[in-house]
């Protein structure tokens, strides 16, 4: 319900207001082929511009939130987020390289950037995991986190280096880094969707294992979980989700950190409920954030990452404060 309301509001609002009833009619027209007696320009705005944007924002929010929830559980660290393992830095390096060198791979055209970004993200995951494995064969989570931090800061400095060397692309790069879902359209949705479905299904299927692993790897092993394999699967699934999301929209902060927290406060830590609900709430949250980003000082659009951080940081601060006051251990 929350998601539907957010989606409709997100589609309706903007410089040209479109009533909910018309949106429903347009969606019905495109999805189940009912007749349409509306202005073609309204149809275009809704179906070609606003609706894909809403769907994309929703998918990205869902991806980041579910990946964040899974990483927090797996790493037993409520402060973990989808970017902890350096995946976003990897994806950013891919994207910034494309922007920096103005490369455009034939066949891919406008898709060059997200494609390079996804590939860079996947390379980063395996880089992190292989390095962690080289450090310690049993791949303790602490090792993985440390490796992630190393990769993150290294790749981060790489991005800074490129920013320092750029001239007029600076604004473009910064904008990309701050994250945006504008002017993406259906192709981006199609690009993201397979990664999302794969990653989300893998994570939700592993909810019981995540429950066990949040009591520690040793306990999980005693309970009969094949820790090595499941850990790897969670990391890969979460990274696929994050990498794909970063690739199409840049680094959007705080969704993956705050949304799982809120849901955990509402329904408890059981991943069987936490994961799907985080996904829905993440989608709704990002749709509303995007709505705010493009309407608050309309017609100028703010980067969506600014909004999520503006909302997310205070919310998170309040949560932390409450928790400390209650005296429970974080």
């Amino acid at each position, binding site marked *: 319900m929350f998601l539907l309301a957010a989606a409709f509001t997100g589609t309706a609002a903007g410089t040209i207001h479109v009533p909910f009833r018309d949106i429903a009619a347009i969606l019905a027209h495109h999805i189940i082929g009912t007749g349409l007696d509306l202005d073609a320009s309204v149809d275009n705005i809704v179906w070609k511009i606003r609706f894909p944007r809403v769907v994309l924002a929703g998918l990205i929010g869902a991806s980041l939130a579910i990946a964040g929830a899974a990483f927090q559980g797996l790493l037993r660290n409520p402060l973990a987020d989808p970017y902890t393992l350096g995946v976003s830095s990897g994806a950013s390096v891919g994207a910034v390289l494309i922007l920096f060198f103005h490369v455009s791979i034939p066949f891919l055209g406008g898709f060059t950037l997200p494609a390079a970004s996804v590939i860079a993200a996947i390379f980063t995951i395996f880089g992190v995991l292989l390095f962690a494995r080289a450090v310690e064969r049993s791949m303790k989570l602490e090792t993985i986190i440390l490796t992630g931090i190393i990769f993150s800061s290294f790749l981060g400095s790489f991005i800074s280096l490129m920013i320092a060397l750029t001239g007029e692309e600076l604004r473009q790069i910064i904008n990309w880094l701050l994250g945006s879902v504008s002017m993406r359209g259906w192709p981006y949705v199609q690009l993201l969707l397979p990664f999302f479905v794969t990653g989300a299904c893998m994570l939700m299927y592993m909810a019981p*294992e995540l*429950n066990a692993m949040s009591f520690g790897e*040793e306990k999980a092993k005693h309970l*009969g*979980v094949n820790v090595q394999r499941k850990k790897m699967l969670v990391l890969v699934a979460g990274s696929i989700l994050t990498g794909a999301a970063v690739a199409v929209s840049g680094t959007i902060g705080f969704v993956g950190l705050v949304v799982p927290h809120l849901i955990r406060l509402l329904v*408890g*830590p059981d991943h069987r409920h936490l994961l799907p609900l985080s996904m829905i709430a993440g989608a709704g949250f990002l749709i509303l954030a995007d709505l705010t980003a493009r309407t608050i000082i309309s017609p100028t659009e703010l980067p969506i990452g600014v909004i999520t951080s503006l909302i997310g940081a205070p919310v998170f601060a309040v949560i932390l404060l409450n928790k400390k006051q209650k005296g429970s*251990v974080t």
Partner: protein
Amino acid sequence: MLQVNELLGGYGSGLIVRGVSFSVKQGELFGILGPNGSGKTTLLNMISGLTKPSGGTVLVKEKPIQAYLPKELARVIAVLPQMTSSQFAYTVKETVSLGRYAHQKGFFKSWTAEDERAVQEAMNQTGTAGFAEKPLSALSGGERQRVFLAQALAQEPEILLLDEPTNHLDLSYQKELLDLLKKMAADGLTVISIFHDLNLASLYCDRLLLMNKGKIHTLGQPADIMVEEHIHNVYHTNVQKQPHPEVPKPQMSLLPEWPVQPDIEIDETFIEQHSDYLAIRPPVPLKALSSGVIGAGWGWRSAFVNRHVDQNYQLDNFEEEAAAYFSNKGFDLQETVGMMTAVKMEDAAWRKETQESVSVLAVATAGAGNAVDVTRPRTSWKEKQTPGTINIWVFANGKLSEEAFVQGLMTATEAKVKALADAGITDRETGTIATGTSTDSTLVAATQRGAYQQFAGSVTPLGIAIGRAVYEAVAESLQKTARRRASL
């Protein structure tokens, strides 16, 4: 059930467990003991499949542990680690339910009635059902430990491994937990547990494994392990063994190394003589073995009282009355040996004897009215007798072995019998020489400082001192009471 052969293992390059072999039968409660760093936890981790051994084999139900799938192994072995924590506020029931992970089958891992039953049973057994819906973070350390025990039990394992399970538990839950483990072992569960507390391990385990530096020091029944020498060799700590008061299992007491204390000599000057009681209050508690109205048996006592009562003193609840009396006089009942006699306190006698390095003070109140020859059969026992009791106190200024205490009692008794014989006191019913009276009490107390006295037999210095002092004191007191009677 479980067989360990020549197991080697450890973390990093060093071997922590170096060649350990043993086997555990089904239904056994098996304890692993050893000092910190002796390899107990490493050994347990290899048995649970957590750590891969560097050498040797672990056979679980005659199948190598490596051949088990993780879920399959979790249905046979459950583990309760020292401490489990979670960052997140799972409820007790959610936590316990995770124990069913290995039993859930199929794509959707549906929750069956069987799962629910196992979880409820585990919570009931561990007394955690009462707070099933509470978050773990709201529980005390001991409650949390019981929740994780419930989780392990919900796995319905055949082997339960525990790492110092009583660590966070208070005394009553320690007992409850171990009683529960004992009961489940009797029902066929194999329990292997690491213990820090030697006495708990000895009390509950069927067999014990004492580890030292990664190897087996001793393996066997508690009586084989709980040997002062073994414990000293492994823990480098002085202990003394005693029997458990109720259960035929040995217990160990720590012997602290306190600074050397000055010697104390108990002599006549400590005797407080009043018309209705006689007392000795030594400056430090004395180790005493005694019979008497209060404070009988073994104990460390700081007051000794012999109370005069009227010869018609006859109460059903005499113990209560006596306790009230001693309390009134300002004696701490926990630390006092109290005796009673109809003999007048003026007729008490004492004697101090020194032999070589040991001295003994004997105090006696002796009345022969109820004199009895214990070796003669008697046809009847007259309830109302003339008053007469022989109470003997022996204070030894030395460090006595338990054997010396027993021999001290024997020697004192022999001296008493001789004093009666020399005084020609007879059992009035049988007409033969009496060996004592029907209500005698004896006490041997020692300062436990100064020279060590292992024996108190009749030819040892301590024995000779006891024999002479007791004989003289009893003889003198007998004379005094006899004179008093004659003068009446």
